[in-house]
Each structure stands twice: as structure tokens, then as C-alpha cells.
């Protein structure tokens, strides 16, 4: 499990990255994160929606309501051009952090599992 702060910071790039792979709705996004992380990254499900709402307000995603096969209305989220750009910025930031850690932690075998 990752810490609350780290989860909060990583939510936005993760969502954008998932949406880069195609249009999707909230429940599926959460399932994907769970699947990829093997359960290590888990959000309080309700907390996802305010973030999605914020991304929509900032213009990084566009939304539409689709009626599913079971007749349930679902809100689908699709990444916009601005969203992709934002994702790239995020990736750059995360990668630079990643590089620092790589260099810092490499000689210490105890941290390499």
C-alpha cells in the first residue's frame, strides 16, 4: 500500500495515463489501477470523482453520458489534447524524480527486492 499523500499526488497522472489508452468511466478506471498495481494502489472509490471533476474543469478531459446495455447511465471520460500535454509534463516530472531515486538507491541492495 502506498501512503495517502503519494496516492493523492499520483492520482492525476494515473488517471490521465489510463484515459490515454481510451475512453473510460470511473468504475473501470479504478479497476485498471487495482489490476496494474496488483492491489498496492487503492483509492477510496468516492474520492476519484472529485478528481475527475477537477480534470474536466481544467479541460484535461471531456465527458459524455452513455446508456449502458443494462440501461444504466454512465459518465465516460476522454482525454483531450490539453490533457495529453499535461500528462507529458507530469511524466517528465515523475521521471526526473524517478531518476534521482534510481541513482540514490542503486548501491543499496537492501532496497532492491
Amino acid at each position: 500500500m502506498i501512503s495517502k499523500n503519494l496516492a493523492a499526488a499520483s492520482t492525476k497522472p494515473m488517471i490521465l495515463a489510463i484515459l490515454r489508452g481510451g475512453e473510460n468511466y470511473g468504475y473501470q478506471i479504478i479497476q485498471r489501477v487495482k489490476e496494474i498495481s496488483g492491489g498496492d494502489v487503492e483509492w477510496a472509490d468516492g474520492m476519484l470523482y472529485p478528481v475527475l471533476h477537477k480534470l474536466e474543469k481544467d479541460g484535461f478531459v471531456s465527458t459524455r453520458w452513455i446508456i449502458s446495455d443494462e440501461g444504466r447511465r454512465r459518465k465516460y471520460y476522454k482525454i483531450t489534447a490539453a490533457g495529453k500535454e499535461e500528462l507529458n509534463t507530469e511524466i517528465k516530472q515523475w521521471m526526473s524524480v524517478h531518476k534521482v531515486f534510481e541513482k540514490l538507491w542503486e548501491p543499496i541492495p537492501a532496497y532492491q527486492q
Partner: protein
Amino acid sequence: MFNLNKKINEWKKSLHKNPSFEEGYIEELESHLRDLIEEKIKEGKSTKESFEFAVGKIGKVNDIGEEYFKSDTTNKISGRPSWKSPRWMPDLIWNYFKVAVRNIKKYKSISLTNIFGLSIGIASVLLISMLVIYEMSFDQFHENKSRIFRVYTETHRPEGEFVMACVMFPFAPAAEEEIPEIEHAVRFCESSQLVANGDKKFYEKLIYTDENIFNVFSFPLKYGDKEKALSQKNTVVISEKIAEKYFGNENPVGKTLLFLNKDNYKVAGVFYDLPHNSSIEAEILASIKSLYTPEFPRLENWTSFSNDYTFLLLKKGSSAKAVEEKFELLIKKNVEPELADRYVMKMQNINEIHFSDLNYEFVRTIPPLYIYIFMAVASFILFIACINFINLSTARSARRGKEVGIRKVAGASRFQLVKQFLSESFIITIISLFVSLIITYYLLPEINSLLRSNLSFSLFYNVDFVLIIIALVFVTSIAAGLYPAFVLSNAKPVSVMKGDNQKNNKGYYLRAVLIVFQFALSVFLIISTITIYNQAEFLTKHNPGFNDEQMLVVPIYDPQLNQRSEALKNALLSDNNILNVTFSSGTPASGSTSTSNFVSEGKNEDEEIHMQILEIDYDFIKTYGLQVLEGREFLKEFSADEKESYLINETAAKKFGFELPIGKKIKLGDEQFQTIVGVIKDFNYSSLREEISPTVFKLNTSNARFLSLQINTAETERVVEFVKENVAAFSPNYPVEYYFMNERFENYYKAERTIGKLLSAFSIIAVIISCIGILGLVSFVAEQKSKEIGIRKVLGASVGSILLLIGKQFIKWIAVSNIIVWPLAHMFLNKWLNNFAYRVDINYLVFAGTLAGSILLAFITMGYHTFKAAYSNPVNSLRTE
């Protein structure tokens, strides 16, 4: 059966309550919830389990709401959702104040009732606090107070334990010498003397004391050297007051005062008048060395007790307990072995002496019980006043419902409304505080003269007192205001607007309980006051067993007078209004007692019994009208009476265990056995608080200290003048003092009278405040029921039945409160009355009378409003709708 859709709808409702959620957000969350549930059902969970899991997984509604709000809001500064009120709104405080003042003005009678009650309550608490602080301040001015201790004596005799303030005379110097922890030991030896400087001649209380007194106590000297002042024999140090009385404004150091018309004492110093809060009261301090004469009987006597008191100053850091333990050795060393177990010497710090309760006390004390009683009474009154506030405020909650509704609609939170109502009670309390300060200001002189205290507003410089006042204001406004604030702020806007709230009867039971409680306190006070008054009356009116109405007593100071006593008697008896005259070593209420140990014939020395001895002449029994039960009184024809006979009282006969006392022989110490020739009926020699002591009467015409005269009260003034002239003629060098026996006896019960007076004042106040509370409530009930009364009258109800309709609940409550309080009052009074050897029985008529009285009073109180309601024209109350 678990209904999933219903549950989901309920969950959605909970989202709707949070203003952050818009319809779309909720729909999206619902879809998510349903996906979660379906997944769980597929996994084989029950619908219920799946629902509960999904709701938990989505998270707390308020947290999600907050996140939505953050992503929606444009207000980046406070981050506070718009529907949440800010923590700090200074503008509102002014508004609270304005509304409070408006409300106080609008409900004038209720506000006045509250202010009246609370001011009196606060004033009572203020006065009592002042009194307590004043009493606690006693003896605090001594720099060495933590190290000054008073020694007292516990005596264990076969007939019982007796604790007294007196200490044997040689104890102090011996203790100072042998116990290293003691820095100084000071004796006080009280006596009364005739003091003269030329023509100025008065009897004064005099204290013989050791020269180191000024090193122990903080009694600063105005003139003289404190190290040397009392080091010489026959020197005195006097107070400023005495200096002025005898020497005017000049410095008296070096001058002399004449004591007892024969001894010259040199004034070696003048001390500043002792502060009012000193337990030790002294005007003239004389060197104790002046007493060291061969005739002085107590100098080396370790088993004789007189008015001798001992104070110690311990060295820094020494333990009082250790010193107390060393006393035992000291006693063992100096008292004969068979008597050593009798005396246990104890110590108390000077802080405690003002509140101690020892026999033969020398310092000024106050029984702590009285302080507790007053503290309790003051808090009762404040409590009653707070109850009025609570009752009147909750009763009118319906009237203020609209205001609360509007405020809530405009966004006020419950907490803010509570704050608003609390600020109202705060303002009322502050107003009451000012009124109470005025009341206190005018009452202080009365209290001071009644309690012989010295309370003043200078206490406002005392931090404790100011803190008490601040605490009092806060506690009162919260005690009175908190519950009403919650009740009033509870109004539901919707129902208020619809008008449902008008019939709000919330708090009915609480009001009932509070009224019962309030009346219970008042009834308790009334019953106690009446009983205490009865007891004080009983003590004053109680027949002491002798004739005290017509007795004039003249203390004799002139030792020469005894030789001419017969001549003086004859001179006095020449006046027709003087019926009998007697000389004796003591009289009832004189405070002059002498005790010794007696053994009856055939008993061992160690079976001696402690008795009071009274030395009398042939006329004592006749003059005091005492009754001889058996045998005879002393008679001149039995010439051997002086050497061979005793009279004893009934109690003494019982103590000796004599069934037929006449002819039995007893002896005093090492004297010869003497025969009992008569038994006198018991009479009260001192206060009725004390049992009658066993007394032996001895015939002795040469040791008189009191002259008692039975007079005809028809011409009292002239007779007193005649007596004064004659006594003065026989002992020209001594001013003549006199007093009336019954006045002395009444003095004994001054404390009870004072308590009675104060308590009755307090209970009248308590009753008035309670009645005003009832008055307020009745007016409210009458107003609330005006329509009901109108309809009843239209339908033909009589005025009587309407009176009963309003009145019956109050009467019921008052009756209940009476009955509840009876056992408590009975218990308390019984305990108090048990302090007295002679006491009244608890009078149940007082209980019944209080019940009848309180119901009557309640009826009168309710009268105006109920009659107004009952006689009002129904048209007026019914046409308004």
C-alpha cells in the same frame, strides 16, 4: 427482506443533504455503487453484504463532498464551504448585544424578575465570599505564621475526655529548654485588673507574657525596644489605644501605671493596635516575671490549669509532629507517674486557631459550621435565582421561535444561536452584578455590626476576590443560560413558520422538577430558620433553675472588702428594694469556675471525681432561690459548717453514686473528710450548651469575688445607684462595675440569635425569589391558556374551576417539594440541636405550617394573574384569530 433499491435511495438521500453534491455527481456515484454491488454479488456475496461493502468502499460522504467543493469553489482563500459559517464574526457580537438589550427591554417584567433574583443571589454569594475571605485572613499577618503553633491539652480522665486551650504554667519554659526544635515559647496568662493613672481608673484585660513575644508574633512596636521591652519585672507594653486612654497624646514610655491600687508597672513600649483580623486580642501586655512571687501557686505546678496559654515558634525546617512526640517525654518527666497518662499535649498551627473549637478558649474564634451554613445558604439563593431564569426563559421559548426560525433560514447554526442566547444571559448577569454590588455596599455596615466583622470593599484589591467575582459571573450566566440556550435554539424553522411551535410545551417536566427543587430549598430554609429561632428563644427563656430575673451582680476586686462583707450587706439591705444579698466565689454565667478532685469515704485515691467548687455564704441559696431537695442549707446555728460540711447538687450525688447522700463524707485533695448536709436541685451554672457540672458547695465567707443582689425591679435605676454608692463607700479605691444576670445569660446565645437573624433574612429572600419565579410562570401559563380559558368560559366554566385549572399544577409541585424536604430538614436540625445539652424538640407543626404557608403564599402570588385570566372577557382572547 433486504430491499436494495430502498437502501440505495436512502444512501442517495444522505448525499443530497450535503450541499456539495449536484444531481449529476450523485448519479455518477450511484452508478459506481451499483457496479461495485454487482461485482460482489457475482463473487457470491449476499445483496446486503455487497451493499455494505460498496458503501464502505466509496467512502465517507462528507469527505467526498469536501473534495467536490474544493474542485468547484473559486474562493481559494479560506477554503471554507459557503454553507459553513466562519468561526469568527466580530460583527455578530454587536448584533448579539443589540438583540439582547432589545429582548431585555421587550420582556421587561421577565427581565426585571431575573435581574432582581440574580442580583440578590450574587449579592449573597459576594457577601459570604467576603466573609469567608475575611475569616480566612485571620492571623495571616504574622511573618512567621507557618512556624507558630499553639499548644493545647487533651485530658483523659475516668469520666471522659476533655480538650482545652489551657496549658500548665511551667510547660512553656521547660519545652523551650528541652526540645531543640523550639526557637521560642511564649505564654499568655490572662487576667483582669484595675489599672490606674491618677484619676483615670478602669478595669482592663491584661495579658502576662514572655519577653520574646515580639520575636514570635508580628506585633510591631511604635515606641520602645522589642528586645528589652518585657525583660524586667513589673513592666508593661500597651496598645496605642490604651496609651491614649491613660496618657493622651504623649509618649508614655518610662511612665508608670498603678495596678490593683498597689503595684507600679513601668510602661516599656507601645505597640500599634492589633489588626482587626488578629485572633489574639491584647491591649496590655505585662512581663510574666511579675507573677514570679512565692505566693504564685502555678509556678511549678504541672497539674493545675488556669487561664494560661502557650504558643511556640519552631525552628525553620523542623517538624511539628516530631515536636508533639517529644511533649510526651516532657510530661512523663514532670508529672507524677500516676497522672502522666492524663495529659496529652497537642499542637495546632496559628492558621487553624481561628476555626478551632476548644474549651476555655482564649483567642477569637468562629465555628466553621456557621461559615458552611452561610456558604450553603448563599449558593441556595443563587441557585433559586438561576432556576427562575431557566424556567422563565424556556417557558417563553415559543415566543422566540420565529426569531430562531428566521435566523436559521438566514444561515445561523445552532452553535451560533446558543452563543447568542448565552450572551443574553451574560448581559443579564453583568447587570445583576452591578445591582448586587450596590446591594452589597448598603448591606456591609449591617453585616459588620451583626457579625463583629470588618468587611469592606477594599477586598477589590484582593486577587482572590476579583477572581471569585469573575468566576461568579461566568458560572452564573452559564448555569442560568446554557439550558435555555439549547432549548431556544432547537426550534425547527419549518414548524415555526407553519405555526406548529406555538403550543410547544417543551421543558414542562424540567420546569416542574426545577420548581419542586426551588421550593424545596426555600422550605428547607424556612423550617430551619424557625427551628433555630425556637431554639434561641428556648435558650433565653429556659428557666435556669434559679432566679435570674432580678439578680444584680457586682464583681469584687478589692481583697479587703471580704473583711467588711457583713457590714456592707447590712448597709445594702437597708433599702427596701434590695431583698437579699450574698457573697460567693462565683455566680452563674460569671464564667468564673474552679474545679477540683473529690474522693468519697471508703474509695481509693484513684477513684477521685472531678467537681466544680463554689464557695458561698449563708445567703447564697436563699438569694438565688435554689431549692434544697434533701437535708438543709448552711445555717449559722451549725457553727461547724465551715470546716465540716458540704452541700452538693443532684448531679454530684449521682456522680458519687449516693442514694442517700445526707451524712456521707467526701474530701477535697488532702483536706479532711467533710459531711454532706444537703442536696441542691440542679441549676444551670453556664450556657445551656453544656451539661450541668457536678458541684460541691463550700461555706467560705472570706473568699468572695462576686456580690449578688436580689432586687425589686420596680426601681432598678435608683437601686443600682444606691448599690454603686454603697460598694464604693466600702472599697473607695475600686470603680464599681455591675451587670444583670439575665443579660449575661442572653449573651451566651448571641451566636444563635445572629444566625437566626441572618438565616431569616436569607430565607425571606429565598421565598421572595421563588414566588417571583412562580409569578412569572403563572403569567406565562395564563397567557398560553388564554384561548382554552376563553372557550371554557363560553361553555360555562366557573371562575373557581378556572383558578383551579391554572393553580393546581403549582400547588401540586409545592406540596411535593415540602414533602421531599421534610426528612432532610429533620435530619439536619436534629444534628444541629444535638450540639445543645438543652434543646427543643423538633416541632412537626412547623413542618405542617410551612406547607400550609407555602401553598397559601403560592395562591396569593398566583392570585393576580389567575384572577385576571379567569375574569377576562372570553371575547378578547377568542376574537384574535
